[in-house]
């Protein structure tokens, strides 16, 4: 097992940036081809008309909006989590934050595409933005869709900066290590960072402010996404619980995504020394908490509807309890509540890495289904029973959906090839502080690899 010195860290973190295995290209090729297929499907849809999707009247929204909500939800992995951890100065966050923040940015980019993909006339999407146009009209600020546009662009800007700032010193590090084009490239990215006291001070100050600002933005983003539904008088959409319900679900799925991403990085880049079972244990606990919170919201929503017993809402309620969505509904509960609870509430499972990963996978699946069940059943059973309908997705929607998952993985892979996936300077800082003040050397610190590996307890797996 490798010893824990800054030099070692430098090597471990920088290795992926310079060395690339054939596996990487293979995976990249597969993912890329899926993405291309999705692209082709979209082009076909634009050419032939949105009719190639399974959408109909009255189910005007289907897979696309489901993906939109799902990915925006995933995006809460990073910024939100890392911001919370930064503010609470949880030391174990250090190896985690960057993986998380990266997820956010890419999930946002992908999620943000869907409102455009699902348009009847996608080539006119820019009409959503406020700019003085020859049409002599501005967008309608009453529309939640416009709130989305603002919220998402704000969140994207914020989280990109939030991702970039702490990476600057690491870019400088790579610059110093690298030669040739990399030197120039990272030199550019590092903005000529030298590490003067003033630079360090301002950087940390900026990070503190960003952490404070980005939190409410993250919350607002998914609240507004939920309002896309809550603002329409559709049975079981028109509900005040949706804001917090969606935010909780977002954090929930976000953590799950983060755990999966970390596990993959750990294996692919041999970061076992830095991403230890301890982190998975911590995140596992967080996931368990959110799972319970999510369950609480489901109950709160269903129970009030059931007691209210208003026929339009009951129509929707029954279609998920005794109708064509029953099985999907209980499968979702199984994925989001049962599995995570069993795995994460038992220490042995939680401490293993496979445990949290399995739970996270089911959660990601379950949360996608949850978004689908929030959107489609109410539209199928909207008021006047004569105009009820059914929705079945077509291959176009399925391909595009698959494409987004592939795109996410691909972007993340490429990113991990260009940027150190662990914040080197923060790690070093942490080690030094703990080394200098032994009272800090907790089991936590030990697990974060702050002391020579000799003292390390035997790893669980």
């Amino acid at each position, binding site marked *: 097992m490798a010893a824990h010195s800054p030099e070692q860290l430098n090597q471990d973190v920088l290795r992926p940036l310079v060395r690339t295995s054939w596996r990487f290209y293979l995976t990249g090729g597969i993912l890329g081809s899926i993405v291309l297929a999705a692209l082709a499907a979209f082009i076909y849809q634009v050419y032939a008309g949105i*009719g190639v999707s399974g959408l109909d*009247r*009255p189910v005007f929204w289907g897979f696309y909006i489901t993906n939109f909500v799902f990915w925006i939800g995933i995006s809460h992995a990073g910024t939100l989590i890392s911001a919370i951890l930064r503010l609470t100065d949880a030391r174990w966050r250090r190896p985690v934050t960057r993986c998380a923040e990266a997820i956010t940015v890419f999930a946002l980019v992908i999620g943000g595409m869907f409102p455009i993909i*699902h348009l*009847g006339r996608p080539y006119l999407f820019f*009409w959503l933005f406020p700019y003085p146009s020859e049409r002599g009209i501005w967008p309608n600020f009453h529309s939640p869709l416009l709130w989305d*546009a603002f919220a998402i662009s704000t969140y994207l800007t914020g989280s990109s900066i939030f991702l970039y700032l702490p990476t600057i010193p690491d870019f400088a590090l790579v610059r110093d290590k690298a030669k040739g084009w990399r030197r120039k490239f990272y030199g550019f990215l590092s903005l000529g960072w030298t590490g003067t006291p003033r630079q360090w001070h301002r950087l940390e100050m900026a990070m503190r402010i960003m952490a404070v600002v980005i939190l409410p933005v993250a919350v607002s983003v998914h609240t507004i996404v939920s309002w896309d539904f809550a603002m329409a008088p559709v049975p079981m959409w028109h509900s005040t619980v949706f804001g917090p319900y969606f935010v909780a679900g977002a954090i929930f799925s976000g953590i799950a995504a983060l755990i999966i991403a970390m596990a993959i990085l750990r294996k692919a880049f041999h970061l076992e020394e830095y991403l230890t079972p301890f982190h998975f244990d911590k995140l596992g606990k967080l996931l368990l908490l959110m799972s319970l919170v999510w369950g609480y919201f489901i109950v709160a929503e269903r129970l009030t509807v059931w007691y209210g017993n208003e026929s339009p809402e009951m129509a929707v309620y029954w279609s998920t309890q005794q109708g064509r969505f029953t099985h999907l509904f209980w499968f979702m509960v199984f994925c989001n509540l049962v599995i995570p609870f069993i795995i994460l509430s038992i220490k042995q499972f939680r401490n293993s890495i496979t445990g949290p990963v399995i739970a996270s996978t089911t959660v990601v699946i379950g949360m996608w289904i949850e978004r689908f069940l929030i959107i489609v059943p109410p539209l199928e059973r909207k008021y*006047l029973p004569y105009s009820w309908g059914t929705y079945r997705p077509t291959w176009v929607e399925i391909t595009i959906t698959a494409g987004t998952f592939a795109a996410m993985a691909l972007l993340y892979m490429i990113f991990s090839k260009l940027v150190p996936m662990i914040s080197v300077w923060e790690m070093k800082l942490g080690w030094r502080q703990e080394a200098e003040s032994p009272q800090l050397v907790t089991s936590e610190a030990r697990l974060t690899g702050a002391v020579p590996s000799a003292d390390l307890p035997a790893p669980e797996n």
Partner: protein
Amino acid sequence: MARQWGMVIDLDRCTGCEACVVACHAENNIATVGEDQAARGRAMHWIRVERYWEGNFPNARVIYRPVLCQQCGDAPCEAVCPTYASYHNPEGLNAQIYNRCIGTRYCGNACPYNVRFFNFYNPVWDKPLNLQLNPDVSVRSVGIMEKCTFCIQRIKVAEFRAQAEKRPLKDEEFNPACVQSCPPKAMVFGDLDDPASEVSRLAQSNRATRLLEEVGTLPNVIYLRSVS
């Protein structure tokens, strides 16, 4: 000349003959989508006659209810449209400006009555069926939401004529296609703000109800219950 166009539908007169449905297709250039699309829930009928069964044999009964855009005073479809394609015109109509529509279909979801119809494909008229198209009504292309307009083209023509002849617009001088064709005279159209008009007189009837009032959309279509 602020008006509030409205309609009264007497469910006791309606016989479900569907004259209104075809009249609407003919007047408003509504495309026929064909069997496969129709089976996929993409048929476009701006006005439909809803049929509900009650009871079982031998005591089965049927209720007919023609449903078209209720031209809500408080329309959910309007506020949610990001491009003002769906907005409230000065005469109290939920106008749909086709050119502004980018096809978010949000209005379709927000509408409690499901009376908004989306062009999933470009409409096709096998020649020379295209000659039947009404030049006063624009033809909608793919990706656009469309809906009942209370035959706004007829309203405009009548208003221009009245202006040209320097006289007030008479209540009975024009009607939407559905009203004009309705054989049992179940539908009456007019200005709800004009106390003299027949429509506002009928709106006072003790049989008057509004569809899904509880949603709070303030519909301008009034239904007269059939009492029996």
